[in-house]
């Protein structure tokens, strides 16, 4: 189905952070990006040249190769070539138990591993027809939002670095470090978190975690203001991003853009609100929506979303209930370790879960969540065994990347860097 402009819902626009947008005219470059230079030179003979950007180019955020057909400085055609990081993750799932696959999800979008853990486990729980205890759901929301902030920090930081704003990178990595310290406290790992479990999470919050997080939130709010001071009205930044890589709402939907890239084009769509999961319905937050659909608006989406995530985290810290964090069924959740060491039944449950894994009924499920980069969905077909018959991942980066040829066309080669940054792709989930 193809979407046209008139099918789109009309929605109010929030700019998320309250920062006033500079007038587009004021920053217009004067050069019409879509009109190649040679067009103004009738009769000139020219040839296009094809060059590879990547797969070892630092600005391609991993091992992406872009096949660029250039007419001088102007991109005539940009074809992304992926597959350099293919590890067969979907196939591997067919020989792993449901639990054993959790660590693999860390390595999809490795900038938001916690969020991937949650997305995968929700799909498995849907297949099993179970739900984690409420406290676990709140903690899952919390880690998802921490992951969102951390992913956006890295996304904006490297993006700015690629465009020459080096100091931004150092600042965002400093705050990301604070989040990683929280991760470490919570999961024992800074990056490969593997935090979720079927029917719950690895462990309850450690002592004082919420206090640490409150401190972080307080700091982070100020930092976001700093970022905006550095970039939002920065003349160079605006000239590099305004009116670059524009995509309209209908086209964005047809390509399959999700996440900040979609909302930057003015489509008011967020799975947390529109296909609610976990305890998001109980939480207040705004969906940040842009208008222009250019690189600059996609930047504003991320800044705005970080503020919203902080808002959610504050609510989590306030509203999180007490209770168990793992489902009570001993066939699904590991029994407490001291019981495993001392009583027969619990030892057997532990042995069976560890050695054979949990059997899921035959059936097909798809469950998606709003990941930092967009809709991350897992399709699982179960055949009654302890492993998926087929597992497929709908990764946001892969679909967002599909817009690259359209976005780059007619722009200068340096703009390709800005556009890649604005799509915030990560090759770990493009090549699975």
């Amino acid at each position: 189905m193809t979407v046209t402009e008139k099918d789109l819902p009309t929605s109010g626009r929030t700019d998320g952070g309250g920062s006033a947008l500079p007038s587009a005219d004021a920053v217009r470059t004067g050069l019409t990006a879509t009109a190649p230079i040679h067009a103004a030179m009738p009769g000139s003979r020219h040839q296009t040249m094809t060059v590879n950007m990547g797969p070892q180019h630092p600005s391609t955020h991993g091992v992406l190769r872009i096949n660029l057909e250039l007419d001088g400085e102007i991109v005539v055609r940009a074809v992304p070539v992926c597959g350099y990081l293919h590890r067969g993750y979907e196939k591997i799932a067919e020989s792993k138990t449901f639990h054993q696959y959790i660590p693999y999800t860390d390595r999809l979008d490795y900038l938001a591993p916690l969020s991937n853990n949650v997305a995968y486990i929700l799909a498995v729980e849907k297949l099993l027809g179970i739900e984690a205890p409420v406290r676990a759901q709140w903690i899952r929301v919390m880690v998802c939002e921490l992951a969102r902030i951390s992913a956006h920090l890295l996304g904006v930081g490297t993006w700015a670095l690629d465009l020459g704003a080096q100091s931004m990178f150092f600042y965002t990595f400093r705050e990301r470090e604070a989040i990683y310290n929280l991760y470490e406290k919570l999961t024992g790992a800074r990056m490969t978190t593997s935090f979720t479990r079927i029917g719950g999470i690895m462990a309850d919050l450690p002592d004082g975690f919420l206090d640490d997080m409150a401190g972080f939130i307080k700091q982070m709010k100020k930092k976001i203001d700093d970022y905006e001071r550095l970039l939002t009205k920065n003349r160079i930044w605006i000239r590099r991003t305004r009116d670059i890589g524009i995509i309209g709402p209908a086209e964005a939907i047809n390509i399959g853009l999700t996440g900040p890239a979609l909302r930057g084009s003015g489509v008011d769509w967020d799975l947390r609100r529109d296909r609610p999961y976990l305890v998001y319905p109980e939480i207040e937050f705004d969906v940040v929506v842009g208008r222009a659909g250019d690189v600059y608006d996609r930047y504003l989406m991320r800044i705005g979303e970080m503020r919203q995530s902080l808002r959610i985290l504050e609510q989590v810290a306030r509203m999180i209930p007490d209770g168990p964090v793992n489902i009570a069924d001993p066939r699904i959740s590991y029994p407490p370790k001291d019981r495993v060491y001392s009583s027969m039944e619990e030892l057997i449950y532990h042995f069976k879960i560890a050695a054979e894994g949990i059997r899921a009924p035959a059936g097909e499920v798809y469950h998606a969540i709003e990941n930092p980069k967009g809709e991350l969905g897992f399709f699982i077909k179960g055949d009654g065994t302890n492993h998926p018959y087929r597992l497929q991942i709908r990764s946001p980066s892969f679909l967002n990347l599909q817009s690259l040829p359209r976005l780059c066309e007619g722009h200068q080669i340096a703009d390709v860097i800005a556009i890649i940054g604005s799509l915030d792709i990560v090759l770990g989930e493009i090549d699975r």
Partner: protein
Amino acid sequence: MPKIRINDTEYEAKDGATILDVARANGIDIPYMCYHPGMDIVAVCRVCQVEVKGMPKLQTACSLPIRDGMEVFTESEQARKARAGTVEFWLVNHPLDCPICDKGGECPLQDVTYNIRGGGSRLRDPKVNRPKRKILGEHIVFDVERCIICWRCTRFTQDISGSEQLMLTNRGVKTEIDTPPGVTLTDPFSGNLADVCPVGALTTREFRFKSRPWEMTPVESTCTACSVGCSTTVWSKRGVIQRLTARENLEVNDYWLCDRGRFDTTFVNASGRLVRPTGPVSTAADKSYSWEEAALVLAGMAMGRDGANRVASWAVVAAPHATNEEYFALQRFARGVLNTEDLVLDTGVQGPELTPSRAEFLSGNHRLDAVRDLDTADVIVQVGQNLEASHPVYSLRIRKAVRGKGAKLYVGSTAPGGLDREASLRVGLNEGDEAAFLQGIHAGTGEDSFLRLKDALTSAARGVIILNAGPRNEALLAVALVLTKLNPSGLKLFVLDDGSNISGAWDMGFAAGYGPGRVAGLAGVAGSTAVAGSTGVAATQGLSDTTVAPPRGRAAVLAAVTGGQIEGLLLYNSGRPWAFSPDVLEAARAARRLVLFDIADGSLVEKAQLVLPTPTFAETDGTLTSPDGRVQLIRRAVPGPERLWHPGVFLARAERLAGGATRAGQPIDIFRDISREVAGYAQLNFGLLRASGLPTRKDMGRAPATVGGGSPE
């Protein structure tokens, strides 16, 4: 046909079936521990209790025969509670051994606990400690703490193997399994105890602490230790066999496997295996050849045109436990390339040969059609060696017939054995007296017992005479065939020879004078298309200008090798170790040229001009044929020596290098040729044989093979 309702769904059932039978047939999960499909029902474990409408108390599903219109509820509150309680009692004193227990991961007790117990332990008191590591016999260790007293093991030794070497001692909570005072567990089927034990109480000393079940790769195969051909599962880890277990096959071995077949596997991963072709004139430092070079050497010896290396005359001797594919490839190579009809199956100095009388018997009406027919026999006469030692699992089948269906068993044997206890009459014989014993029965005079036997055989409706005299079977068969005239419609003969695949070798035409399908050759013309089943190289190259003498017997062939009239000897063994008979060894030492195929280093390796490693039973695909004509599949379970060529591939390459046809030589390719050229194997393939094998057509050898000879190449 009665109908019953289980959990509000109606099922059809057979008369006399139990509730559990119906549930199992329809995939309804009722747990059980003491029930075993191969054993009698005792209903002692109580975990299969279900609610039956109209009955005030719960009933054990395994023991309650169904009645038309019966309504059963397996998941009612009462039934669930009773089952969960039963499991809880088992676990009260069950030790926390799962992390070190061999059964862990394939343990029915774990499964029922996980599936139906559902709650945590309520035990507060310390567990009762009982003896662990009680060594019951050569193979079996018993852990008293783990035992749940299901009686499967005691029932096995009482009802299945008949040794009665396990019993229950003491009463109540002190009940435990033990051997009778002063008795060691010497049961030749003791390995099955570990298979049937639903917990880790009985384990085999060979497998203890070796591997977790999920670390191993199971491959369904067939045992090659004797001609019974029991279905097995070969479990290996990282290319090393960890254990063999019995695999259900109601046509052959039911659920059982003998200890010889189960534990005699160490040679597969032993040191001293041959790993690459060698020969004394190799220029390599370790005297090795590449496979291609080795094929060239053999081709040169067979067909060398310079005359220097050519070996003019050949004999081929093979051990009796190779696969059908190997025999087929061997006879094709022997006839087509080596130009010889002197094929000897080494079954012992006076071992059986495919003689006209034997060939006629195999194609005739007196042969037992299927081992399963033993179950319904009413009179069974077993003559010769102790069957429990020579063909162990057949003795289980006979015991089942005697105990279950009331068959009468008469044994005339040269050594006492476990079956003697089942026999109505047992006569001790000296070796060589077997024929006289049958003659005595035929005459029906002299002793009382002969008269009784004669009466029994004459009046039998489905009588079977089992001839198991090893090398003396030939003489015995002649007498037995006379005996069948007493009761032509009611008597069958079952001839058991001492070699795992003699039937297969003969079917494949690895027999002097008999081609594939046991078709008698045209006066033994070597290279003849009718015999070889394909155009021989020798014939096409004009080398078989003279007609080779009619097939000589084994003794004559070996004497000719020893005497130098036959220059070359190709000695073949694969699958498992084989000690060639003294006369073969003598011939091998005297032979001018010796080509040796074997699995492991031995005394003949020094002597041979060319030594070629062969796969063991666990390293090759292939088929075996049992004495009743059933073909079964063996599968490659471990990789074996690196870059090992299957003998079929090697012989095909040598044939090609000798100027012969180009063929594919993998087992599956050879079997395709077999199904084309051997009448009884027509339309069979590996896929069809998979689970439990299939019978071959019995009327082989009567007519020429279907497409047989003249396939143009």
